[in-house]
């Protein structure tokens, strides 16, 4: 056990921090972080595919380096890079389950940012209950014809490709009969519509597929085993994602401290107590994230402690957002740039409510902990 960076890790962190200090402002000014430009810049500097095997163009580093990258880029408020799904989820799944041809065709372009991926899993009637997927793919000459509707898909309006979960076996139910498909977003019959959230923003999209053609060589993994492939994808999402979330929370916490100072509330005992308690929860998340990452390094799998990160992050982020907005007093009703922190807290208060929904609802996550970690009987 050693809670410090090794020499190599410290050097990597220092170099990355310096690089981010120069690059983040360049991309943040015009919001162009959410363009392939940011991914290309990352790629050129060697920060994409850190944990990918070297034979696929990665750097073959341990998850610790991915953790350092996740932490430092979130602390630097680097833009969410557009190909986060390709790099973090689809790429590793293609490494594990793709054919050699798929690996040649997709991996290098994912790394370089030439191929931006989105994900098509959730549907209007398949949210927490993902196995209720109804989008159907019908076998045809040379491939499949796909019809259905996908929702809550990030980056779909900018994506070149989509990793889609569809029902390929007619009449099948639940987990069997599903298949993962790599869908070219420019195919005829693929339509992307923005979803507008209750904040007013549009971070997500709806994908409508009408008889869209997917050739046979774009089936990922065996036909009928899409559920297992989808689970691999989601497992990759949970690797060092907790560290990203915690570092973002830490940025919000720093902003909260600045707001407390600006409002002259540093002497208020109730404010001080809440700040201290939030800090304890933030630190708990942070060190649990490091513990989960260390287990991943040791065993190749995240340990049971990783299951709490997203759940408790959402609880804490919501608590922070509620506390921050209340600090503003009557000015909290304002929703304009002349409000304190330029309306940031009003926005976060609204946005944070979805934290306990997106990426697994808190109810589902508590159920997973109860059943898989605590060994309780199934609750359904």
């Amino acid at each position, binding site marked *: 056990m050693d809670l410090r960076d090794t020499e190599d890790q410290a050097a990597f962190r220092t170099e990355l921090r310096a690089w981010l200090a120069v690059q983040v402002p360049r991309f943040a000014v015009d919001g162009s972080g959410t363009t392939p430009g940011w991914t290309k810049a990352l790629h050129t500097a060697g920060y994409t595919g850190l944990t990918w095997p070297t034979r696929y163009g990665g750097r073959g580093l341990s998850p610790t380096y991915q953790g350092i990258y996740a932490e430092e880029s979130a602390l630097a408020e680097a833009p969410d890079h557009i190909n986060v799904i390709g790099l973090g989820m689809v790429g590793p799944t293609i490494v594990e389950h793709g054919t050699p041809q798929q690996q040649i065709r997709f991996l290098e372009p994912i790394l370089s940012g030439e191929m931006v991926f989105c994900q098509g899993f959730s549907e209007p009637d398949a949210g927490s209950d993902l196995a209720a997927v109804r989008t159907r793919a019908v076998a045809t000459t040379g491939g499949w014809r796909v019809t259905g509707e996908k929702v809550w898909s990030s980056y779909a309006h900018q994506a070149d490709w989509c990793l889609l979960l569809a029902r390929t076996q007619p009449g099948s139910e639940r987990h069997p009969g599903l298949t993962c498909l790599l869908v070219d977003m420019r195919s005829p019959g693929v339509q992307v519509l923005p979803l507008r959230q209750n904040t007013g923003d549009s971070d997500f999209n709806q994908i409508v597929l009408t008889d869209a053609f997917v050739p046979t060589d774009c089936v990922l993994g065996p036909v009928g085993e899409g559920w297992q492939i989808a689970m691999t994808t989601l497992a990759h999402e949970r690797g060092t994602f907790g560290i990203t979330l915690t570092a973002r929370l830490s940025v919000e916490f*720093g902003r909260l401290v600045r707001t407390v100072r600006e409002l002259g509330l540093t002497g208020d005992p109730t404010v001080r107590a809440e700040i201290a*308690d939030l800090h304890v929860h933030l630190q*708990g998340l942070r060190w649990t994230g490091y513990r989960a990452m260390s287990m991943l390094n040791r065993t190749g799998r995240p340990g049971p402690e990783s299951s*709490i990160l997203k759940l408790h992050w959402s609880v804490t982020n919501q608590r922070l957002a509620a506390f921050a907005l209340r600090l503003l007093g009557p000015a909290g009703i304002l929703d304009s740039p002349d409000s304190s922190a330029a309306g940031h807290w009003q926005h976060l208060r609204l946005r944070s409510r979805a934290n306990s929904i997106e990426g697994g609802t808190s109810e589902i996550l508590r159920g997973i902990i109860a059943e898989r970690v605590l060994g309780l009987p199934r609750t359904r």
Partner: protein
Amino acid sequence: MDFALTDEQRDLQVAAARYLADRYPPDRIAALADAAVGDPDAWPELRRQGWCDPELGMVEKGLLAQENGYALHPTAWWSTVGLAQPVHRAAGAAMPPGPLTLAWQDEAGTDGGCRAAPAYGGGWRLTGTRCLVTDVAEVSGVLVAADTPDGLALFAVTMPADGMTVTPQPTLDRLRRTARLRFADTPAELLVTADTGRQVLAAARRHGGTLLACEAVGVARRALDLARRHAGQRVQFGRPIGAYQAVAHQLADSYVAVELATSLSLRAAWLVGAADRGAADEAEVGPAYAEAVVAAREAAVRACETALQVTGGLGATWEYPLHWWYRRALWLDCFDLPTAAHLATLARQVLAAPA
């Protein structure tokens, strides 16, 4: 960065857990608690197994403390290794073989305290009071913080001692009992002079307090285990109650608190160990200690209270042993610095840091 237990650390923890589970099944713990006695006969075996080795690392001690909390290990190990050992180390003195404790707390609402004066013909004499002294009935000696004309110093008193009166102070947790000590010209040996007395006492309290945070994690884990076993077996409305989300999700939330506290208490243990070797910055160790204590107390109390809810009528009885863990959790929640003081430390640190 490697925040995972080594194989040796894991082996140590498993061996400790096995020893404690064999020697202290819950009915024995309940019987000892009922009688308000410890298990002093265990001491030679603990020493033989190396529980008191001065070379034991802080993370290793933290793991033993976790298992102590899990089992409610009824010996003076914590008083000896947690409180007295760091004082002896600072004094450069070897530990005597018997269990020890440390007396530093003042009687609330009095200006009592304890004073030391040089005795004729060498040595020192103590006069005054120390209260909430742990495990007094089990130990062969007491280390006492006493004021000298030059400031606070630390003294060793060997039991039985002339002019020392022990009055038990009955405690909520009958497995870690406390007593009030009154000294009247009691002979004592100077261990740490006033030059560093205050500093050594603070370090000893932090050393012991870090182990109590680890112990609280063990208490929380045990409460969670009792509750999940019950939730898997108790059938109502035709199903085990653990199959109801209202029950299962409470236990999941307990687990969250346990994991957060596990991370923070092990981190604090590692840092306190590093600080002993001069390899950690005080600006990091102080807050890490406060974070660990706050999180671990919360986890222990919460896990026990959730377990009391989940075990229902059974958990409300004297015979079901859960309340002994709850009593320990409440003991830990109150002992030494209050949580509000730790939070105040953290608020100062956070709000003073550059924006």
